[in-house]
Structure formats: structure tokens, C-alpha cells
């Protein structure tokens, strides 16, 4: 079972920078040397801490009002770059449950969905409306409702968002994708049997000769 996502209400931390890459979210050395359960404290390390190890007060999640914020509002192409899934684990451990952005790095978006985090890609006009409420000027509380696909603001006004219905369903129910796909194993085997006839060269996966002929 994956953790379910239904509704999240809380302060929205603004990180309105474009092209935030997964190297910045979690540096590679922490992917190998920091235990999986302790990634939260090193998330955004390069911009979150100063060189002496103290917190950088300019970084939004270090500020009192935004500490532990369950909602992150990002810019465009958030989570671009490396496919490292620890980037999602690290954000999750920081307490972030949903990320609202213009759009996302493709692999990062998929990794969020596989871990029960809701990535919300807003259309340009909706994104502009959200930012225009001044969430980068003062702390703003938002309510994100996946059932209704709505972001509701403090004044009651709301912004609709899109998500692929099957993904929405999986998040709402906490569905484990692998468990679902395992039910389709007979279909997979049948496809493979046909494919072996149609494209036999794909299925030859041992070298034609022991010696590398060209290299």
C-alpha cells in the first residue's frame, strides 16, 4: 500500500525558482552515504545551510512560518535533471505532501506519484492567479483537495487543477501500482509470446560470439 492522498491544508512555502534540479534537492553524496530515513535533514543542503553548517535564514523552509510546510509552491520545470528517487524521499521527510508548480521534470513527476506525493502542474493562468495572492510576500494557508481537484485559498476562492484520472484514483486509494500490474502477468506473457515471433531479434540477448567483433 502506498500512503493515500486526500486533502492537505497548511502553509504554502514559496520556492519560486525555475529549473530546480534534483541534484539541488538531494546531492549525490547523500544518496549513497546518508541512510534513507534521514534524507530530510540534508534536503536542499547547498541552499539551506551556510558553509559553517548553520541554517541560512534566507532559505524559505528555515523561516519560522514555513518550517514543516506541507505545501511547496515552485516555479517551472521543478525536479529536472537526475532520476534519483531520493529527491522525492527527502521532500517527503521534510513533511511536504504536495508540490504546486508550472510544470515538472518528467522522471521526478513520476517518482512523486509512486510515493504518494501529489505533484500539481498548473496552467499558466491558474499559476499566475495563485502567485498573485502574494504567497511569496506573507505566509498563506492553502487547502489542496484531490477528490475535487481544487486548491482553495483563505478567502474561499479556488483554483482547479488537472491530473490524469487513473493517477488521481491511485493516490486517493493509495494503490500499489506493482500489485495492480502483477494481476496483468498473463497479458504480459501473451504479448511476449507474440513479440518473439514478430521481433525475434529483440529476444536474442546473448552475444552472437564470445569475442567482441567490432569493439
Amino acid at each position, binding site marked *: 500500500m502506498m500512503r493515500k492522498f486526500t486533502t492537505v491544508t497548511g502553509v504554502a512555502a514559496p520556492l519560486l525558482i525555475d529549473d530546480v534540479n534534483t*541534484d539541488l534537492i538531494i546531492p549525490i553524496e547523500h544518496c549513497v552515504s546518508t541512510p534513507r530515513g534521514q534524507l530530510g535533514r540534508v534536503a536542499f543542503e547547498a541552499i539551506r545551510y551556510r558553509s559553517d553548517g548553520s541554517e541560512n535564514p534566507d532559505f524559505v523552509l528555515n523561516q519560522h512560518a514555513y518550517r514543516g510546510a506541507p505545501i511547496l509552491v515552485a516555479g517551472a520545470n521543478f525536479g529536472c535533471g537526475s532520476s534519483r528517487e531520493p529527491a522525492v524521499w527527502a521532500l517527503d521527510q521534510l513533511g511536504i505532501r504536495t508540490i504546486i508548480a508550472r510544470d515538472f521534470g518528467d522522471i521526478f513527476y513520476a517518482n512523486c506519484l509512486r510515493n504518494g506525493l501529489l505533484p500539481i502542474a498548473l496552467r499558466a493562468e491558474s499559476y499566475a492567479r495563485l502567485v498573485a495572492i502574494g504567497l511569496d510576500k506573507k505566509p498563506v494557508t492553502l487547502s489542496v483537495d484531490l477528490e475535487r481537484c481544487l486548491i482553495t485559498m483563505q478567502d474561499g476562492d479556488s483554483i482547479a487543477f488537472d491530473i*490524469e484520472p487513473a493517477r488521481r484514483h491511485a493516490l486517493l486509494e493509495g494503490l500499489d501500482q506493482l500489485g495492480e500490474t502483477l494481476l496483468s502477468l498473463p497479458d504480459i506473457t501473451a504479448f511476449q509470446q507474440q513479440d518473439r515471433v514478430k521481433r525475434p531479434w529483440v529476444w536474442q540477448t546473448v552475444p552472437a560470439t564470445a569475442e567482441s567483433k567490432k569493439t
Partner: protein
Amino acid sequence: MTERPQTLLDKLWSQHVIKQLSPAEDLIHVDRFFLHDLSGLIAIPDLRKRGLTMQSPALNFAVTDHAVSTAQGREHHVDAKSRRYVFEMRDLMREAGIRHFDIGDADQGIVHVIGPELGLTLPGTTFLCTDSHTCTHGALGALAWGVGQTDALHILATQTIVQGKPKSMRIRLDGALPSSVFAKDVILAVIGRFGAGAGVGYAVEFCGSAVQAMLMEERLTLCNMAVELGSRTGIIAPDSVTADFLHGRPYAPSGALWDSAVEAWRELHTDDDAAFDCELTMNLTELRPQVTWGTSVDQVQPIDGRVPDPDAAPEAKTRAAVAETLRYMDLQPHQVLEGLPVQHVFIGSCTNGRMSDLKIAADIVRGRTVAPGIRAWVVPGSSAVKRAAEREGLDRVFRDAGFDWRESGCSLCSAVNGDIVAPGERSISTTNRNFVGRQGPGSRTHLASPAVVAASALTGTITDPRKLNR
């Protein structure tokens, strides 16, 4: 009745759909899956924990490339930090029965170098790996992209992935490349022109006279950085260059199987009049060598260009971001990159670690010496590239000039193997990412072609290869 014209993406996608799961998601067959030494250590234990086995063991492969040292003699002196990534990985892959291209294996190398080199990457296949630069394999007409750890487990257990079909983008590149300008300059210029997020949600097909004229290794460089445009993958329709490249490779089909494969690959092209969701074009006849100045790949300009002025940016948000980038990179507004001193020079990676890259660099280096105080490395992209280069004496050319000639691996591109650039130091590198801390915490990276990087080694500053006198 005429059928609707199809894009190359349409054809590649539909051939792998096992079933439609929803209007926007399909269950896609994975023809080739690669684990590396970071993901393999997690994926196999994950599989065991679930009590599952591999659905199609013969379609899965593994390689040790990311976390292993590239120092000579690495098989005998494995340092404490990388022991797991060598020994535990080796044991896990043996127990799992996965073909593992381990250090010491003649076929070891960076996954995106050895896939094509061994003929494991074939046109019309889906090729997935736990690495974002898997898009490289699209150069051969494969549908290839990177996945995370959860999807790795899904693939091992079912040989499938649940995926929405990306939108289609075509980038047409026309015109002959000027001398000293290479595929690396092309892709850097494309990303600079259209932006690091221009391809989000798309699969990009590269076409045009410049692409047709490229040899396979140049195409691999081009597609390697499709992900830096934000796109899920880059693809090039297979042609005679592709077939000639693959013919006789160890894992490529042979005999009658080869003939039927080539016949099927002829269908793998975009039909006339097929519609794309987005089309872009660029003419390359005036292209100059490119160098990045910032910490996003689209922060790039011609080598003789000037670093931007944050105050010239229209939006406050951009002004702040550019100013912060210049602070990190220790650059001034309007500064010219050419002539900027560097401490590290790196030639290698899945972008530019192939034989043609080493030849370009060697031709510039031959008979000259690396500037004093510069740490200059050549890391071949695979053990086979290393052997081929040594057969041609390129190792001597580099060594005589003062370069360190190393074993194959990701080295200073993944920087998780003991190879790093010290904080505050500046590197010019043939790799694919200039992100904050990419080559080590606090490191400053400028991306460029092997020609620019080799020329820079000789002067110790960022140097235009066209200005070196022969």
C-alpha cells in the same frame, strides 16, 4: 481508406503497448532494462522483500559505472567508501542471475556507452535504465528514458512500465557545421535557444540535414542531452548510419535475423504529413563553439560571448536568479568566458567519452603540454573505448602532454566515486550538467565540447580551439 500518418514516436509507442490502462496511460513492454551500481543495490533487495522474481531475467542487465573509482588498479585497491558498490553489487547480480558488466570485464563501461557499443541498444526497442541520460539510446531509434527506484522494481517484476505517452516535438537542425564545431555545441545551443524546460512533457525527434550527416557517436551526444531540454527522450529515425554502426556488434542480430531486423527498422520513421504537437527549427551554419556560464544547461553562450548582466533581465525573479548564479560561479556581469582560468579539465562521460571524442581531443593535444598546475583527466567511456584508444596510441598522446589516463566510468560526471572537484575550483568539462555541486560540493563547472576542453588544458584558461596555432 488511408491510415492516419504516424510519427516515429507513434510507431515506437504502439509497438510496445500491452494494454491501455486508461485514456492517458498504457502498460508498456520494456525490451531492455539496465541497473547500475547505485540502483542495483536497492532494486534487488526490494524485489526479494516483496517475495518476487524477475519476469524476464534475460532482458535485464547491470553495470558498475557510477560509484567506482576510475584510478588505475581499481580492481585491487577498492577504497572503504566504494566497497559496497563493488563487492555487494557483484554478489547481488550473480545471485540474481543478471548479466553484469563489472569492473575488470572487457565490456564494462558507462551504461550509455556500452549499450550501443555492444549492440544491446537496437532500433525499435524500449530501453530503460535508472538514469536520466538513458535518452542517449534514442540516437539509434530506440525509445529510451530514465526511471526511478520504484519503477525499477516494477520493471524487474513485470518487464513493464505504466506510462503516459509523451507529446511529440520535432526539432529540425539544418546546415553544415563549421569546423571546430561539434554535436556537443549543437545540443548546447539548442538548449540555450529554447530553454531547459522547453521539452517538458515531450519526446523530441531530431531531424534535418545536420542530423542526417552526423555519425552515430555524434547522434549519441545529441540525444544524450535531450533530457537537459526537459524532454523525456530524444529520438532519431534509424537509417544506413544506424545499420552500419550496429552490424557485427556482439549482441546485435546476425545472419537471417539481421536481415529481418533491418527490414523492420525501415518502417521506423515519421510518415510524411504526420502532425507534431510542437515543431522547432535551427540553422547551424553560423554556430560557434559553446560554453556554459551558469548552473543550468541553458545558461550557455558562444565561447567569445559575454556573461549576462542580471540588471538587464526583465523580471525581478530572473534578476535575482542570475545574480545568485554569477555569485556561485564567481563571475562578473559582461565578463568574457574565453581566457577564464580553470583548475580542472575533464574529458569523458556518456556525453563525450567515445572514440571520436578522444580523437578530436588528441588531435588538439598532440605534441603539446598541459599548462602548469592544471589537473587534466581523460576517462574513456568504456573499457572497449580505452583499448581502442590505446591501440591507436592516443593514451600516449594524452600522457605525454600531461593528462591522467584513467579507467572507464562516470568519474567527474556523477562525482560519487572519489573523483571530485574541490570547493571553489573551476572545471571545464565535456559532461552534461553544470548544476550547483554537480562535480563536488562548491565546484564550478563549465560545459563544452572535447575540442574546447582539450584546448583549455593547454592554456589553463577557457580557450577557443580555432585560435590555437598549429
